[in-house]
Structure formats: C-alpha cells, structure tokens
C-alpha cells in the first residue's frame, strides 16, 4: 500500500511537468496548427539563464524567476523571428521549421556555452524529504505538485475570465472565426507563445531541480514525452493535453515500478506502444473531437 501511494505521488509529480509542457504545446497548436519542436529548448534556456544568474551571485529564488522570464521572452521572440513567416503554411512545413529552430538552438548552446552539463546548485532544503505519516515525500515532488496545481488554476481563471483568455479559447476552437470577431491575431498568437514559454519555464525549473544540471539537449526528451501526451489527449484540446500528460506519467511510473528487471530496457518502448494502442481505440485522442465537413 505504501509503495503504491509513493508511486502515485511520483506519477502525479512527473505528470504535472508533462502536463505543463503539453499544455503549452497544445495552446500553440490550437491557434497556429504548429507542433513546436523547439519547445524543449525553452526549458534549456531557463536552465542556462538560471546558471548564469547564479554564477553572477543572484540568489536562487530570483534566478528561478529570471529563468522563467527568459523562457517566456524566448518563446515570444521565437514566434516573431521564425514562425511568423510560415504562419499560413501547412502543418508539415511548420513542424519542420520548428525542428530546424530546435537544431540551431542545440548547436548554439553547444558552441557558445558548452557541450558538457553545467551544474546548477540547488538549495539544500529542496533536496530533502518530508515525512508524512510514515511516507517520505520529496520536497521537489511536493513543489512540483503544488506549482502545477496553482498554475493550472491560474490559467483556468485567466482563460475563463479575461477577454484575452476567452479569445484564446475561442481561437482554439476556430481561429479564423475568432479573427472575424475583431480579435487581434498577433495578440492571441503572442499570448499563446508567451504562456507556453512561461509553462515551459516552470517545467524547466522543476526538471532542473531534479537533475541539478543543464546541458544543450536537456529539453529534448521531456518535450518528446509532451508531444505524445498532446496526441494522446487529443491534438488541439487544452484539457486533453493536461489529461494526456498525467496518463502518460502514470503509465511510465507504473512500468518503472512494476516491470520485471529484464524488461526495464524496453520501458520507453512499452510505454509508447501502449499509447499507440490507446490511439488505435480512439484515433482522435482521449478528449479530441471530429470537425464537421462543409
């Protein structure tokens, strides 16, 4: 029972990170139709911003804020520079554009900073564990779950109450019509990228806190996972992305916990195979929908 609860919390923490990443991806996809491969590099940028901030003697909490701000800014710039010229192109074109952006950023990190990992000193209090009725829960996991919950709540309020938020939800259902309603497309797109950058920044901090270092390829793997989560949840559906992130994390954590040792090298492959089987049953994803044909 104990191990079960422990694993449940692990899955929740991991799922939170995936959900934040997936939500950012889904937000951008729903307004632009772009699957942003360079999303992971936003996490990496958070890492490097924190690394340089800490190296400059800035205290850890402020470095965290700077890191998240850097990711947000980078996301907005990315849209401005790379994605605006291909805004009206098909999905394949935009996907490849983002793939190229991602590769260029990798190379810049490698050449301008370092190919080797840079350590980010995490404060001691974050490394410990809290003892809760016989269960020891990592501080980082508690932080992950708290941060995810707060962020998702704040985002829900923003999307439901503010004009821009409502415009974003409308845009995720039908962007052309939203534009006809007089909503400024550039504002919606920039906000979508800004939010996706913010979410990636937070996810980056949570990821870094567990790893303690940043390297040029850091963001690649988690974002691949987030892609899978987005498709699993239903491409373009915001709640679907969050759900997909948690489902994927639960599959991963259960496999890690309960798979026989011989099978562990195949863990990743088994996870993805399970997801593809789920998609066989529901090709449009868990919360996806079919569009009407006119």
């Amino acid at each position: 029972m104990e191990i079960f609860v422990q694993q449940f919390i692990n899955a929740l923490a991991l799922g939170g990170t995936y959900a934040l990443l997936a939500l950012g991806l889904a937000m951008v996809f729903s307004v632009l139709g772009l699957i942003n491969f360079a999303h992971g590099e936003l996490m990496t940028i958070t890492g490097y911003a924190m690394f340089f901030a800490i190296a400059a003697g800035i205290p850890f909490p402020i470095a965290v804020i700077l890191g998240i701000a850097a990711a947000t800014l980078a996301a907005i710039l990315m849209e401005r520079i790379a994605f605006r010229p291909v805004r009206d192109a098909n999905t394949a074109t935009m996907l490849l554009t983002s793939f190229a952006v991602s590769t260029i950023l990798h190379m810049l990190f490698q050449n301008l900073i370092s190919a080797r990992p840079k350590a980010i000193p995490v404060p001691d209090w974050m490394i410990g564990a809290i003892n809760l009725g016989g269960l020891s829960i990592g501080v980082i996991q508690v932080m992950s779950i708290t941060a995810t919950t707060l962020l998702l709540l704040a985002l829900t309020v923003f999307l439901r109450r503010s004009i821009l938020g409502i415009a974003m939800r409308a845009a995720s259902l039908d962007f052309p019509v939203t534009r006809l309603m007089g909503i400024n497309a550039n504002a919606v797109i920039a906000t979508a990228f800004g939010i996706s950058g913010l979410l990636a920044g937070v996810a980056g901090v949570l990821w870094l806190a567990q790893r303690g270092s940043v390297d040029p390829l850091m963001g690649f793997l988690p974002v691949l996972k987030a892609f899978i989560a987005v498709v699993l949840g239903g491409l373009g559906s915001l709640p679907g992305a969050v759900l997909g992130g948690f489902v994927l994390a639960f599959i991963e954590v259960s496999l890690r916990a309960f798979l026989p040792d011989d099978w562990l090298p195949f863990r990743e492959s088994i996870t993805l195979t399970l997801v593809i089987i789920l998609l066989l049953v529901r090709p449009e994803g868990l919360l996806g929908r079919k569009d009407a044909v006119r």
Partner: protein
Amino acid sequence: MMGRMIAPGALAGSALLFVPIAILSLIGWQVLGNAQQGTLTHMLIMIVAVLAFSSFTGNSGILSFGHAAFMGLSAHITGALTIPQAQKAIFLPDLPAWLADADFHYMLLGMDLHFFIVGLIAVVIVTFVAFLIGIPISRLGGPSAAIATLGLLIIVYGVIVGARDFTRGSQALIGVPKFIDIPTALVFVAIALVVARTFRDSLSGLELRAAREDEPAARAIGVNAHARRLLAWTVSASLAALAGVLLAHFLGVYSPKEFYFQLTFAILVMLIVGGMSSVSGAVVGAILVTAMIEILRKSEDYINTAWFQEPTVFGLTDIGLSLAILGVLFWRRDGLFGYREIEELAGGWRRWFGLKVHEAEQGAAPVRIQQEGALEVRHVAKVFGGLRAVDDASLSLKPGEILGLIGPNGSGKTTMLGCISGALDISEGAVNLDGHDITQMPAHQIARHRVGRSFQNIRLFTHLTCIENVKAALAASGTRLASAQMEQRALALMAELGVADYAERRAGTLAYGLQRRLEIARALALEPRYLLLDEPAAGMNETESDDLLKILAGLRDSRGLGLLVVDHDLRLIMRLCDRVVVLNKGQVIAEGAPEEVQANPDVIEAYLGKRRAATKTAPHATQGREEP
C-alpha cells in the same frame, strides 16, 4: 494491383532521372579515388532512403519520422545474419544458437546468393512489421500521425538498444561484410526509383494524393484513405528496409544511433529542399543536400584543424541543414520541384515518346441508369452536443427526379447531406439506398454505391491537375479501365461540364465557376445514381446560374439521375426542381411541388419571421436570390 497501373510518365520520369545519375556515377567509379567513391555510394544509398520517405510522405502529406527506424531495424537484422561466425562468437556471444549457426549460403549458377537472401529476409521481416505498425498509424490524422511516427522512431531505437543479445546494445556492430559499391548501389537506385514512381502514378497513389489534398472530398468519391495510407506506408517501409540493408553493407560498422534523429533530419531536409510532393524533387534534393553536407563537413574539419588545436566548432553540418530548411520554407515553400515531376518540367515529353496529347473524344454517350429504387431518409436525427441539427427528418429521392432542399441558414441542410453521404455519423433513424441499409456505412463505401456529392465550400484536389481530379474519382469508384480509356472517359466527363480545355491545369488555379463545374464532373465519374449538390449556384451570377440550371436539367434528362439540390437561390430551385422539401430547425416543415411550398404559410414564417410573414407574400421566384 492488376489493371491499376497507369501513366507512361512514371517510366519516362524514372529514366530522365536515372540516366544522368548512372552516367555520372559510373564515370566517378572509373576516375575517383576510394574516399570520393565512398561519398558517391553513400549518396546513392541516400537516394534510395529519400525515395522511401517520399513514397509515404510525398503521397500522403504526412511527415514521417519513423522510416529511419525501419532502416535501422533492417540494418541490424542483416548485420546479425551476415557477421562472420568467428566474430559473432566475440561480439554477440549471447546470440541464440540457431542464429549463431545460421547459414544462408546457396549457390546458383556459380553465384553465392548469401547476401541477396539475407537482404531479402531483412526487407520482408521489416515490411511485415511495418504493416502491423501501420494499421493504427494510418488511421490517425496528419499531425497526430506525424507524432506517432516520432514515437515509433523512439520505440524501435529502444528495442534495438535493449535487445543486447542480438545487437550489442548501443555499441557498434562490427564486421558486417562490406560489398556495396557504385554499380550495385545504382541497381537499387533504379529499382527504388521505379517503385516510387510507379506507386505515385498508380491509381492507388493518385487516390492517396487526392486524400492528401482534401480527405473529406476524397472519401466522398470513394477513396478509402486509411487503406491507401497503409499501402503507401508498407511500400515505403520496404524501400526504407532496402536502404537500411544497403547502408549496413556499405558502412560495415554502425550503431543504433546511426539510424536516429540525425539521419531522419538529414533525409527530411533532402525531401523538403527538392519538394516534398515530388519524387524527382526528392532525388534532386538528396543529391544537393549530400553535396552540401560533404562541403560543410570538410569545412568543419578544416576550421578545426587549421584554426584551433582541438575541435571547437561543432555541428556546422546541422546548422547548415537547418538553415537550408528554413531558407526553402521561407522563400520557396514547395521546394525546388513543387508538385511537379521531372518529365512535366521537361515539357512535351509525350511528343518525344510519341504519345498522344489529350484530345477530348466527343460522343461517349452517357448511360441511362436503372430507374427502379429510391434513396430514402427515414426519421434521421443528428445531434451535436445538445443541438439537434437534424431532427426526425424524412425525405425520399427517386432516379430521374430533382428534389430541392431549402431552409433558412442553420436549418440543417448541409448536415442532412452529411448524414446521407456518410460524412457524419447518424444519431438516430436510417438511410436506405435502393433497398440497402447504408446508415452505418463509411463515406467511401456510400460513394461506391453510387451516391455522389459536391460541397458547399468547393473541395477540389487543388494541387492535382483537373484531369487527375476526375481520374481519382474514376479510380476510387472501382472503374476498371485501361490508362488510355480512363483518360478518354475523364475528358468526356469534363467536356460535358465544359471544362475539358483545362485538363492539364492545376485545379486550384481555375476560376470559381469552373471549379464548381469540375467538382460536378468529378462526382459524375462515380456514375452516380443519386447526386447531392450543396449550393452549386453559390456565388454565381444570373447567367452562370442559368447555365448551371441547363447542365443539371441535362444530367437528369440524359442519365436519369436523381438530384438533391440544396441552394439559397430560390429562382434556381423553383425552376429546376420537381419537388421541394423545406427544413427548419432540423425538421421538415413542408414538402411538395415548388408552387405549393412557396404558398405555404409555415415556410413564409420560417423564412421571414412571424410578424413580417403576416404582411408579406411568399418568397417569390421573382424576388431573386437570397444571399447565403
């Protein structure tokens, strides 16, 4: 596949590409040093690989990240089977006995068939695996499918690394026999080229390209998009497996990483630079990009050795590839070749090969259809969330009859057409076609039961030529005709609608009115018994809509079709239709001859509202059109 081969263009195009490549490569084989020969061989293998990607991605429009996985899989299978036994004992000690001792040496006419047999085994196994994986992937929509292929790449990589007994994990396989030289590679380039071109130009390929352009419209002419995608996926996977075998026996030493993101990225760049939707483009892209990679690699070495003591600059190649992709996507989005093949660019190739240029042969008299039976819609409802867009509506249509379906905006007319044609799932009720229940049938099967439709927003296959639009429908409806006859049939249909002169134009470049006509010509290729037209006169001026009226009446008279016409142009409806059904809020509120319906107070109320209905008269034909 019998009777499904077409287009002499496929062979002409393959030859136009292959001959110069072969000549230059063979010259290189004679004059170049070993290292350059290696580069050349590698380039030829990359051509095979890019043709594999192109056969799927080019025809389906779905970006694949997964084909490098098939290359890796086949490379590791052929590796495990061909490494000499002494080396197997050292590097793969845990190999099961049957594999360690496997011997595939067979002699035929003094030739050792070992590699041929092993290569074939690898290709067959990988093709079969790909077929199984393709079943879920071919059902996914474009972006989701692309991500699923990405997942596939990671899965297969994980499996290859995890299966240590067979593959040495992430370490390199050593001692795979190297025997691929320029002439051998050329043979396989020729094979891959012919396979890729033949598939693209086959009727299956045409159907798939139609689905790439517009999937709902493709379903509506009978294309089973899932099945076509699965076929393309399997064919392309076999080519990828072939490329993997070639690469294995070219490199001799390779690790699973060789077949991961970097390779995928390089091949995708080749595809994009040349033009994703063109086989010729893929080949030319492979040549250009390989050359570029080679130059960048040399520069990188030069910079690192000449300027610095140790390697300090990384990934110049990757940055170059990325910039190439961005450059192409920003400035020439469809790549160098766009949607064209080399023989189309060369122009006039038909004359070189002594083939006839399109000529419409008049007088292929339309066949009158059987007049028994009816299309019956019984108490159909379609629910979207809480909205009953169509609510307990019934209507029937007989061959030889023109039925008008009118109603205010949002009354459920288009939804009704969607329910009949299978584009939408019906929530309640049934649709009966000449005594067969078609309620649950998918759209492409309903189309093959000879129910055609047009769309409110024109849905042509924009990047295909006009004649290809019609041929796709001929192919998908199961018409079995030889290539030349099919061309004639398509042209005759186009002539009937007055668009035969535009046969070789891209459909998207036609004027609006002509596009509407082409859409009808395409629907007629199904030899429909019933034709559903969604606002055929929308956006037409009076003269154009008069012409349309004549054409539609002509179709009924010459073929005896049953026509269901949705339109807001009441003048057209009143003059054309034998009977009119009026929908309001999803329900049938009136039905009868045009004059009866026009005088019906319920109809007037639905159109004009209660208060105004009391003072106004019926929506007379003379009032002209109501804007949609």
